[in-house]
């Protein structure tokens, strides 16, 4: 390879037969681009979820009746607080509000504004929020997707919620979340807890579920046992379970891979190798193999780089229109997520292994066939 005439000849061949090579390169670049785009999106979302998981409570307690989740009485809050080793017990009140004409729904989240931590966080997250002004009336803060939804349906700065009894509750929009947080806040609406209870017609003294932390990992099993002794209709969701289900969320099934592979194999059919009668002029089989091997490798490498560049631009600069729907769904409010660039060597290595090895492996035997030209043919 240090042999520069070899390199010059290799480039010459690539250049002279460029239209043939370009066809292969374009198709394989697109395959790599599709593959990398999918991996980039999933990697990016995984990184985001990993980030969120750090902030998540270790345990969530829910109440189960007849296999369905029902509301938790407020008294449980204190019962859990009394268990040793438990900290930051948080009541959560939330639910999905279903908008039947369009079959769409929002996630309504009730915030306790007397809780110092959450009110501080709200001040920071929504610019120009004067908390006192926000609390003076019953108002809400909406996510970007909800904001767009309201605009499309000609709601000017308010929304009429209908509670199960048919009463209409008009809630004005106070502000909206930053677009950058779309990945979690797109379909979210936050409002005071009491307002939410009246929309869902929940009892005053109930919560949706309770979240809490147990800082000492060794205590986890202990706490779990104590919780189950406390009530029989309890369901405890641990952070580990959530972590695992998140992890599986974006490891996808074989279908996509298989489809990509079919396309890859189709490209091989396109590869029609020109025969060179070089054996007659002092080339050995090894030399011909070397030439063809490098020729293929260069095409593979170029397609790989092309594909990665295209995928990077598509995912991180243009935020993956269409493909992001595959991951985030397209049944509800449309979500425009800004993806955070996450690319590491392992990921690039994965893409290269996945694409390059089968590609080169598939051309080995045809390349050998070219290399062992019969002397009779070589002389013709």
């Amino acid at each position: 390879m240090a042999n520069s005439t070899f390199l010059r000849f290799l480039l010459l061949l690539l250049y002279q037969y460029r239209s043939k090579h370009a066809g292969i390169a374009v198709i394989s670049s697109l395959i790599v681009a599709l593959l990398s785009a999918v991996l980039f999106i999933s990697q990016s979302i995984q990184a985001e979820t990993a980030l969120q998981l750090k902030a998540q409570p270790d345990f969530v307690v829910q109440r189960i009746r007849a296999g369905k989740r029902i509301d938790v009485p407020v008294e449980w809050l204190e019962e859990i607080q009394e268990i040793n080793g438990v900290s930051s017990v948080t009541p959560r009140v939330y639910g999905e509000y279903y908008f039947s004409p369009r079959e769409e729904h929002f996630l309504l989240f009730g915030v306790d504004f007397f809780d110092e931590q959450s009110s501080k966080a709200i001040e920071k997250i929504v610019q120009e929020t004067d908390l006192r002004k926000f609390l003076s009336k019953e108002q809400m803060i909406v996510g970007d997707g909800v904001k767009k939804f309201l605009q499309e349906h000609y709601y000017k700065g308010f929304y009429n919620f209908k509670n199960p009894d048919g009463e209409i509750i008009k809630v004005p929009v106070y502000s909206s979340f930053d677009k950058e947080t779309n990945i979690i806040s797109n379909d979210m609406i936050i409002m005071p807890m009491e307002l939410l209870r009246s929309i869902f017609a929940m009892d005053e003294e109930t919560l949706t579920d309770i979240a809490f932390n147990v800082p000492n990992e060794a205590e986890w099993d202990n706490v779990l046992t104590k919780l189950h002794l406390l009530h029989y209709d309890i369901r405890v969701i641990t952070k580990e379970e959530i972590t695992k289900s998140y992890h599986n969320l974006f490891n996808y099934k074989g279908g996509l891979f298989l489809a990509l592979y079919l396309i890859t194999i189709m490209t091989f059919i396109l590869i029609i190798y020109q025969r060179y009668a070089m054996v007659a002029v002092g080339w050995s089989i090894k030399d011909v193999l070397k030439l063809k091997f490098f020729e293929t490798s260069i095409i593979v490498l170029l397609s790989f780089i092309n594909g990665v560049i295209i995928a990077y631009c598509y995912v991180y600069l243009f935020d993956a229109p269409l493909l992001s729907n595959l991951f985030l769904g397209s049944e509800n409010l449309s979500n425009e997520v800004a993806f955070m660039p996450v690319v590491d060597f392992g990921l690039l290595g994965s893409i290269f292994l996945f694409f390059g090895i089968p590609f080169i492996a598939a051309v080995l035997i045809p390349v050998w066939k070219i290399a062992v030209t019969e002397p009779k043919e070589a002389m013709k």
Partner: protein
Amino acid sequence: MSEIFLSNEVLIYLLSESVIYVLILIAALLSLQLIIKWDFGSYSEIQFTLEKRAYLVMTIITFAFIVKIATLPYFAYGIDKLSDLVPGAMCASGVIGANEYGYPLLGLKIATVFISGTWIIINNLDLQSPNYPFFRIKTGLFLLIAILISIELFLDFTYFGNITTTKPVSCCSVTFGQQGGSNPLPFGLDTAKLLVLFYLFYFMTAISAIGRYAATGFVANILFLVTAYYAVVYFFGTYIYELPTHKCPFCMLQKEYYYVGYLVWASLFSGTFFGINSLPLKWFAKKDVLYTYKFSLFFNTLFVLLVSAYVLVYYLKNGVWL
């Protein structure tokens, strides 16, 4: 089916291994035919066809082995990634110990990579001489490797198929830490003696590489490989992690330590690989294969400098030893 198979890295790794295995299988079948019918003295058409086919076999094997060598670090990367999924695992160590197939698989992988490297060198020697003197040796060696790789592929699938995501595994601090004060080092060595042996064996490998003593180099490199493994896990590793209690051969593969583990293990394995191989290659070629000495010296020195540098830099920065 285990959810482990849905992990991207595992999927891609198993796919690459399977593709390579198909190639190896083709090459093995052709090799069997070659070794049975091969008669270099013959002028028959069949022999000429075989000679041409030998090139196909050679190409396939070389390609497959290069990929094999490349997938070894990828395997480490893949199981490292799995540690998020397996409860209790902080790094690859827990995942590899998740069932009884893990460590045999890793050992077998390293062994196949070693023997494959030898095959590549013998193949090059063979092509340089005008009458294929090592043809039977290299084909036989390849058939042996093909059997090993078959076992390896089987272990690959049983290993990944048997990792459960519900049963917690032990973390590296349990596997490699000092349990109950017992000494994990073999032959009752302590750290000081281990280090003395480490540098002593290194100088032995260096001297045998410079003086081209193949037999001494063979022994010295094996001893060096073993002591270096213990030295890295129980001494140098603690300086890489900057934590006296953190003893693990796998954590250094992670991003937090700038992936330095790949360099550490790659240089150690390359150095000892060439050092150990000088002797068998000398037997085959009936002369010294010079570059093995050079590479052995280079990679071993790189390895020793790298791990020693971690200790020195730590001392210069903090003014104390761990």
